[in-house]
């Protein structure tokens, strides 16, 4: 209905408090489990392995009592980019350097374009991977408030502070970034409408013409960037005016505590990861490619 309603299409980053067991977990446990799952998605080079992971993620969504379809809807604006990326991979890589690449057979070989079974597989696997990662990030933000996230991250990283890891600063940056998402979304909407009122034509031409669409964005991006810099400057002063001077000597309103279930969840995730890495999905893949009964 509304062409300039950006927030309606962005599902990631919202918090959906359904009060499930997943919501109640210690943010530290969720962050660790999330890291493990991201790791296992990145290290699963097989098609069937990624399908299994997506099924697992769908199961997690069910456990969190959040609609899987709702989460997938957020992917819609990204589809042209995913497709473009896929086409590039398909056409301009042989897929040979890819960890899962075995037994590559050329399907077409014309000029610099070489499509092999491996590049087809590469495209399939990376698309599935992208979906899985997107959904994982979604799941984390749907079930965890931004404050829980940043406090969890800060506490997780704080042991590393002695090695120079700026744990507190990273957590603060994360909080502020998330805090400004709705503000900048509103500002973007206002700028788009203002420029359209002056005759700008965002989104004219095909959704697939990247260069043209990017150039059209300049009247939006330039003011957005400048205003963000100005906001950052004021925010810095406002924080200093409230005695901000780094993480040293700060106390905390929010305290995080672990329960039995957090350890159970972590252990479960670790086991799953182990299982995923030891299962022989590669032969399942080749069976799928040449089904022999």
């Amino acid at each position: 209905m509304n062409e300039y309603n950006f927030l309606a299409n962005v599902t990631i980053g919202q918090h959906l408090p359904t009060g499930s067991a997943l919501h109640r977990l210690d943010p530290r446990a969720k962050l660790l489990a999330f890291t493990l799952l991201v790791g296992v998605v990145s290290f699963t080079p097989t098609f069937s392995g990624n399908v299994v992971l997506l099924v697992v993620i769908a199961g997690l969504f069910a456990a969190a009592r959040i609609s899987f379809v709702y989460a997938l809807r957020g992917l819609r604006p990204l589809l042209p980019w995913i497709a473009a990326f896929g086409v590039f991979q398909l056409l301009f890589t042989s897929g040979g350097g890819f960890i899962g690449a075995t037994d590559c057979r050329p399907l077409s070989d014309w000029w610099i374009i070489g499509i092999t079974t491996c590049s087809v597989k590469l495209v399939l696997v990376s698309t599935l991977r992208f979906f899985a990662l997107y959904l994982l990030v979604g799941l984390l933000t749907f079930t965890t408030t931004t404050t829980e996230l940043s406090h969890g991250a800060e506490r997780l990283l704080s042991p590393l502070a002695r090695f120079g890891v700026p744990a507190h600063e990273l957590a603060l940056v994360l909080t502020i970034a998330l805090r400004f998402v709705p503000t900048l979304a509103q500002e973007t909407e206002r700028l788009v409408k203002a420029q359209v009122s002056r005759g700008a034509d965002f989104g004219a031409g095909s959704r697939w013409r990247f260069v043209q669409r990017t150039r059209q964005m300049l009247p939006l991006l330039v003011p957005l960037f400048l205003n963000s810099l100005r906001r950052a400057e004021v925010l810095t002063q406002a924080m200093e005016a409230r005695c901000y001077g780094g993480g040293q000597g700060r106390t905390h309103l929010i305290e995080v505590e672990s329960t039995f279930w957090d350890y159970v969840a972590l252990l479960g995730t670790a086991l799953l990861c182990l299982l995923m890495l030891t299962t022989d999905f590669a032969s399942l893949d080749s069976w799928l490619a040449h089904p022999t009964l």
Partner: protein
Amino acid sequence: MTDNAGSEQTHNPTIALTVAWILERDRDGWRRARQRAASALRSACHRASRIPERPFVCMIRVQTLSHTYKPESGRPITALRDVSLTIQPGEYVAIIGRNGSGKSTLAKHLNALLLPSAGRVTVDDMDTRATAHTWDIRSRVGMVFQDPDNQIVATVVEEDVAFGPENLGVPRDGIIQRIDEALRSVGLHEHRQRAPHLLSAGQRQRVAIAGVLAMRPRYLVLDEATAMLDPRGRRAVLDIARKLHEAGMAIIHITHFMEEAAEADRVIVLDDGEVALDSPTRAVFAHAGELQRLGLGLPPVARLAHRLHLTYPEVPAGWLTVDELVADVAGQHFDNERFYTEFEAQTSFSRTPLGNSINPQTRCEANRHRQETAPVIVVENLPHTYMAGTPLETTALQDVNLTVEQDEIVGLIGPTGSGKSTLLQHLNGLLRPQAGCVTVNGVDLTNPKLDLRQVRRTVGLLFQQPEDQLFERYVGDDIAFGPQARGLSLDEQRERVRWAMEAVGLDFEGFKDRLTFTLSGGERRKVALAGVLALRPRVLVLDEPTAGLDPASHREFLDWLTRFHQEASVPVVIATHNMDDIAQIADRVYVLAEGRTVASGTPREVFAQSQTLAGHGLGVPSTLEVMGRLRARGLAVRPDALTIEEAVAEIERVWIQDRRPVTLHNGAASNE
């Protein structure tokens, strides 16, 4: 810094204030709490003295302060020159001055956000240049900025309020206590778990104030903290400032609103980085001519008093608030009791009927058939729902009606969230009507096949803070953006840019090659306006065009708009929070509340319904407020004097009937 929770209870104004609020009906309790807070503040300051042998100076002291900004390229800019002043604990000071006079720079020196280029600033005897004192100074001098969005750091209200105490290293129990008292002081305790972006702008600004109060400051600096708020939000912030002041906190309020400055006890006027005036409020506003010269003005009530004083030298010129004026005029000359009853008996003067003047039967179809007589804009029964079908669904408009005729300036008023912006966006096709009917220049916007770009060219829409939307390096290029997007020839583009720039009062040759980012805020706003005018719109729609302007630029803009409207014969729709603006320039007014048109008519008719307006958190122009209050005191003035001239005439009329029985002259009825 340590937090000795035991003793601090007593010398903290916010706690005392909270206590006093609980005891609000108990006058003595309130006074005792105030006294206790004030004396505790004094002793706290003395206890904090680090150099006991020296007499301790418990105040903010600015001595021959100069400040020079040194940009990496270009000439250094001197923002403050030789400024000397003191601010005592518990004072209520307003700082006024035109844009760029150095107000904000001065404010930032009070809490060591900036350090003097020359001279000295001390806060309770601590030099701002001594880094050891920085945190102590900043927790004593709290600062609230203009845009609430740029000062809130957390995604939950109470966590944002906790930010200051956390930085000060207050233990967790102490933080919880401070959050509690700070949020109670600003009346947002029940919202402590909410996300700030879901609150209104006024509420967000109160969150920002609470965040500062949680540091338990002794001085509170409000740096144009009311500039972006609607009347209700502004009133709430001012009421909080007043209560904190009564509880012993010093308030330093920087503002462009003269009526806000009038609420302070003392006014400091800055001009070009120097202190031009620094006196008790009454004395400052006695210098009407001087203020005018400094790009400022008088609060509306003071303007009224000033005019009365010119005709009747026996009238004191010093009235600043409606209360003072009413008490003086009504108290001196009339027998209130008798007139009051008489007034009560006759208040049933005829009211303008609410709602629209259009026959509800009229549909879009009907309007298209009589185009030559049809109004420029017709909006009928328009609803709008954002994000329908998602968990974030909100209804912005329920049922709105609006017509704009060719020769009109139509005002649109309503509290934040009433749907004003949504309505404006329908007028140039940014939003399509979901139901109902919108016709602009005879084009039916409900037609799904319509090319909306055509509509956008004929309706120029200027958004809030339009200066933020400039994106080209050069002024001329930015203004040419619209004509260029239309594909006009270079000559024609140039011609339009020249016309638009001259229309807004920017010299074409002088400004077209200037860099946009080197312009002042006011000039940037003119450039943005020219960018809209370059489309040669047949209707001009403005959203809060005067927000954030200083009094002189404000007057200049309104004069320009009236002139442009007449000379270019372009109908204008203007949404604003400023009732005095509406009274001055609008031919007709629509009042929006909760997505409905709740009143419409001439400003005189609409503002006569002050009860309806007050119910929606809207005020009336100050002259009307004075008239209303005088009537309530039994004076037979007409209730609908819109301009200062009319108000003066009315007061003159009853004045000469001094001490004679005055029959209540029914001004409103005879006017219709």
